[in-house]
């Protein structure tokens, strides 16, 4: 893992494409499949250039057959290839659950270690422009439930590249969770190949008042919230777990033991989600005397409404995150409304390093 602000400024989407191109150049076993990976839109740019560089044998679209295509990717992986199966929306993984959970997650164990499934499943959480109930789901919580799968959700371009390379080299099925709104965000990204190790959380900002764990895009939203909170002299420690399985609970626990407040901001439904797991693990470990206040926020517990009039209430945003923090840090104090102008400004915030 690179620890400094090195490399060029690169967009998340380009970091993804670069990671794959470099790994494909190095390892002929790596290939990319999935609906539309080879068209001129190139999965919103994230597979840009691969077809031209590596040809149609290694970069190909598929029929609309997510279930069997997942099986195909698994079979190729068992044969020693390293498929990257791409889905432009995470919602479509619901067609793949049987192969992912009944085969990919279990094969290594169920077959006594005689086969492995080095498979990367890339999927994008949709958002923006009224995606609606079926094009906006975030299912990482479901995958965290299942032994045998790894789950990563990088929140910036640096981690996107490093995690994707790590995922490609991993000998297990890795659910690689991207977020549409992260695609244009930029960070320092080294040119050379590097891996971001799974199971090591990053403390993005230090703070003593509260520990905020953000997941996927909610790292960015939490950083924006933290900017706002400075106005009222609240200093949040923002933690990005980066990988959800394996999960670096120690970093989160240690922070929460110090701040005595733990807020998990997920980019998904709350019940039985990543936040539930993080809160439960922290409190199991901290014990009854730790006196940690805990809270989870995430999607409203509804299907995603299409109209922006309701969508605005569906997602956590810097304002609602900051308000939740304020109430946790100063319970009983008058509710506080961040200055809308400052909230807008907060949207300029980007985490570009140091890594």
């Amino acid at each position, binding site marked *: 893992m690179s620890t400094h602000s090195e490399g060029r400024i690169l967009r998340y989407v380009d970091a993804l494409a670069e990671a794959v191109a470099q790994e494909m150049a190095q390892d002929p076993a790596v290939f990319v499949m999935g*609906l*539309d990976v080879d*068209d*001129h*839109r190139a999965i919103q740019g994230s597979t840009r250039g691969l077809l031209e560089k590596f040809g149609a044998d290694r970069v*190909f*679209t*598929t*029929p*609309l*057959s*997510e*279930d*069997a295509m997942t099986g195909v990717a698994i079979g190729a992986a068992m044969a020693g290839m390293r498929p990257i199966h791409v889905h432009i929306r995470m*919602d*479509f993984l*619901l*067609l793949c659950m049987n192969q992912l959970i009944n085969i990919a997650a279990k094969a290594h164990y169920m077959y006594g270690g005689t086969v492995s499934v080095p498979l990367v499943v890339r999927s994008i959480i949709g958002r923006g*422009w*009224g*995606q*609606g*109930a*079926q*094009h906006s789901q975030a299912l990482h919580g479901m995958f965290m439930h299942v032994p045998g799968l790894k789950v990563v959700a990088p929140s910036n371009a640096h981690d996107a590249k490093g995690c994707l390379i790590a995922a490609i080299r991993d000998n297990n099925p890795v659910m690689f969770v991207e977020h549409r709104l992260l695609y244009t965000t930029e960070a320092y990204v080294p040119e050379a190949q590097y891996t971001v190790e799974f199971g090591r959380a990053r403390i993005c900002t230090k703070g003593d008042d509260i520990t905020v764990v953000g997941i996927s895009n909610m790292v960015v939203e939490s950083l924006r919230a933290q900017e706002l909170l400075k106005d009222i002299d609240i200093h949040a420690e923002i933690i990005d777990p980066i990988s959800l399985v394996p999960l670096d609970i120690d970093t989160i626990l240690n922070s929460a033991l110090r701040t005595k407040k733990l807020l998990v901001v997920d980019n998904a439904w709350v019940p039985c989600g990543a936040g539930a797991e993080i809160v439960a693990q922290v409190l199991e470990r901290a014990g009854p005397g730790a006196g940690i206040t805990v809270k989870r926020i995430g999607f*409203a*517990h*509804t*299907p995603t*409404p*299409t*109209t*922006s*009039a*309701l969508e605005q*209430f*569906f997602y956590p945003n810097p304002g609602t995150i900051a308000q939740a923090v304020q109430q946790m840090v100063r319970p009983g104090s008058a509710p506080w409304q961040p200055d809308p102008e400052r909230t807008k400004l907060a949207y300029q915030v980007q985490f570009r390093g140091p890594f």
Partner: protein
Amino acid sequence: MAPGSELPPQALVERLYRSLHFIRHAEEEVARIYPSDQIKSPVHLSIGQEAISVGVCDALNTDDVVGGTYRGHAVYLAKGGDLNAMMAEMYGKITGCARGKGGSMHLVGMDHFVLGTSAVVATTIPVAVGYALALKREGKGRVAVTFFGDGASEEGAFYESLNFAALHKLPILFVCENNGFAIHEPLSKRWAAHDLCRRVEGFGVPATRVTDGDIFAIRTATAATAARMRQGNGPELLECMTYRWKEHVGPNEDFNQNYRDAAEAAPWIAGDQVPRLAAMLPTQLAAAIEADSRVRVADAVRFAEESPFPTFEELHTHVYAL
């Protein structure tokens, strides 16, 4: 129309043209408005493909049931769905057919027996088959129709649905709108065998292909199959070759994107059923129909614009049925 076949009666042409022009005009308005950002959700226009919905729905009874896809404006309207409610839905207003929660991809009009459309390809096919199961049990001779694209035919659920529908002799017509593309991917990258009808017949489902987009042929084929289905004959499939004029999603043309050739479109534009039907009608009648479309569409846009947005409480309503 096959040469030598009788000229369709004017009443029929008029009815078809009324529906066809209305839908074309409504979608053109959607395309015109779209850049203004008032429609904040993806739209998949049917422009160029509407004759399929109109031809099929014209052959159905009011209480027959249809279901479509995210590219569902035409089906929704052809079956009698309310344009005001559709337009308001696209604007995200509370007066929308789904109270603004669904948007263009999730139109629904149960009062006109339009099943909800879905953004996940092929998902509505088995759902329509299930509705047809209920219709069979009801025993009143009603039928269901499910519209879907060529891409949807690649999903396993489609074949599972064919087998089950045929096994139970359900009154369901499968209508494949084969426009040759799934987003930007041509059939050649997706189908090993290009004869969908033959593939479907292997499941015991009789299949008919209409190659030229002729609205009368589509209507006639539907009427025949619907009559058979009402007798308990079981499911059939209608494959209608067609062409999408606009980009996959959004209001623009995309021939400049090089994944397809404008020349491909030319015969379809030449064979466009909208001017064809207009030309079959007295000029004045056609003009009156067009004027009527314009009024209705303008009214719908105004209705959508003037309707209120849903408020916060609406977020949490309808998660569970009472």
